[in-house]
């Protein structure tokens, strides 16, 4: 309920004695969550062991990149894209084909370009005629799968021997390369959102489309840009999947869009747009991954793991928003 009635008095009442400062509440809630998580981690045997940390960091990276991309879409006021998972799969396949033809450089360019273009095309439809983002992305999923079926003739594809892809499978200072990429993607996302004109335009559009338009923001380019970056980040996730597992098919990336939107929400980015950040999403992705790891490590049976994950996501969303709103 924001209308012109919802206004705080002008400059004069600054000296007015304030009620308890509720603005600190979200911070407090977050602190409590972080402390609780840390305690739970410490109390879980094996959590801080190398295998756990490494597998956690590696596998959160694929979905994490998609989630950071999703964040841009959410902030721009377009809720979510259902097509990012399929885009990741397609990028993985394109990457392998292109690497086999022209080497790693070409592969990278081709995969990222295809992912970015596929996504940007949706962004264009959403931005230029303001088509409904959810439907456009559902349509895109169907089109991507259909097209992939025609092109791939239903097969998995693999790297040829001798492409030298192995060098991309290492660690950097003990940290898995995938996680380094996720950190870079998060940094890039954060940079875009906070330090570029484009990023500011995204927030403006997300918080009020009409106001952004009246202020001279080129709205369709901004939306297209958001989808373009989301596609590129997702493409990177696809490339990493292909590299890590030595092959690809369209099943790669299935379901990532749900995981990604869960990470975005748990991070506290608002669904209605205009608010949020890439760092928050990174935090959200980590929280979900950590909780899942903890449940497995503590030997919970599979079905309880599912239930607890659900309840915890629920709880975090509730906590977040009640802190946010008060």
């Amino acid at each position, binding site marked *: *309920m924001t*209308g012109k009635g919802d206004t705080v008095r002008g400059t004069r009442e600054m000296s007015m004695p304030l009620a308890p400062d509720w603005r600190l509440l979200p911070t407090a809630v977050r602190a409590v969550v972080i402390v609780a998580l840390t305690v739970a981690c410490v109390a879980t045997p094996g959590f801080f062991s190398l295998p756990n940390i490494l597998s956690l960091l590696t596998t959160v990276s694929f979905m994490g990149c998609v989630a950071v991309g999703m964040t841009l879409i959410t902030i721009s006021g377009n*809720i*979510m894209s*259902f097509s990012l998972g399929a885009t990741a799969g397609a990028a993985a396949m394109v990457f392998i084909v292109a690497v086999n033809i022209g080497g790693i450089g070409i592969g990278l360019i081709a995969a990222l370009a295809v992912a970015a273009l596929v996504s940007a095309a949706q962004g264009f*439809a959403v931005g*230029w*005629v*303001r*088509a*409904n983002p*959810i*439907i*456009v992305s*559902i*349509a*895109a*999923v*169907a*089109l991507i*799968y*259909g*097209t992939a*079926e*025609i092109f791939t003739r239903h097969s998995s594809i693999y790297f040829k021997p001798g492409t030298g892809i192995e060098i991309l499978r290492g660690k950097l200072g003990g940290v898995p390369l995938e996680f380094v990429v996720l950190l870079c993607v998060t940094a890039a996302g954060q940079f875009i959102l906070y330090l570029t004109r484009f990023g500011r335009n995204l927030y403006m559009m997300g918080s009020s489309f009409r106001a952004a338009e009246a202020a001279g923001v080129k709205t369709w380019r901004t939306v297209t840009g958001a989808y373009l970056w989301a596609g590129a980040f997702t493409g990177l996730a696809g490339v990493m999947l292909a590299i890590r597992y030595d092959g690809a098919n369209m099943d790669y990336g299935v379901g990532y869009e*749900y995981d990604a*939107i*869960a990470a975005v*929400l748990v991070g506290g980015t*608002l*669904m*209605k747009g205009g608010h949020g950040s890439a760092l928050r999403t990174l935090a959200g992705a980590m929280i979900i991954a950590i909780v899942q790891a903890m449940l497995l490590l503590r030997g919970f*049976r*599979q*079905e*309880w*793991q*599912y*239930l*607890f*994950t*659900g*309840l915890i*996501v*629920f*709880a975090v*969303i*509730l906590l977040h*928003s*009640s802190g946010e*709103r008060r």
Partner: protein
Amino acid sequence: MKASIRNDPHFRPLVILAACIVLLSAVDWGQWRFLSAATPFSTLQTFANIGLVALGLGLTMMIREFDLSVVGMFGLAGCVAVMTGAAHPWFGIACAIAIGLAAGIIQGLIMVRFALGSVGVTLGGLLTFVGLAHVLTENRSVPYDNFRVALLVNEPFAGLLSVRSGVSLAIFAVVALTFGFTRLGRDIIAIGSDRRAAMIAGVNVDAFIVGIFAFSGVCAAATGALLSYSLASASPAGLSDVLVPAAAAAILGGVSLGGGSGRPLGIATGALVLAVLRSGLNAVEAPPFVNDIAMGAILLTVAIGDGPYLMRRLRQLAARERTDR
């Protein structure tokens, strides 16, 4: 006159439906695969899988919310029905519906009490319901041993209907009548069109939110339970992909995510479009990618045709062309 037909919320879905039928008939001409006596029954069976879920989801979309949890409820209700309804099928259905109702009410109350958006809450609901289904079934598929019921719910009667599709159509009819002839329909449109306004005007918005999410839960639960009966099994992972077709059906049927538009009969037509496409493409033996691409193309066309800026952009292009010359 012409304009009034075009403004009719059922106009577009009907046109799309007609177009699909004409196209499929043309493809099939002379081979009597699509144009066969079996197609209507088959179409209505598919309709029974998604129709009600689309209705529940569509109503939440009409009030500018989105119920992601239908997927979870669909699977959970199937498991509950199969596990409790072996001896007394009605009891199983009742249990499933009770769970759907309770889950919908709880989610609705959470949204209302804490002023939360529905995407977040129902995402939590979705994951929780899936988890619950896994716990209840101990991560196994459960067979439904009452084979007689399984065959009965799909038994054709009147050549066209089965119990499942009959139930769906009946519920659609009731909802459409309620929507059209009582205050409720207009109140729902008002809430979707401007929630604050509706509240100030005296509509009990909170009750509607809770009620509609409860209805959506019940729809998903009933569909899930009946489907599980008809397949004589339930799986915590779900037996059918339902969210995307349901959302697509609602949208094809004229519901917009912006709220305030759409009618139950429109949603029914939208679901029918999808069902005709599925059954029809199956019948004409189209390769699977044709199904995907046709569906994608239709949705994309609808989305772009619905785009509020479409006319403006076309005029801009026309103007630019004029000045360029």
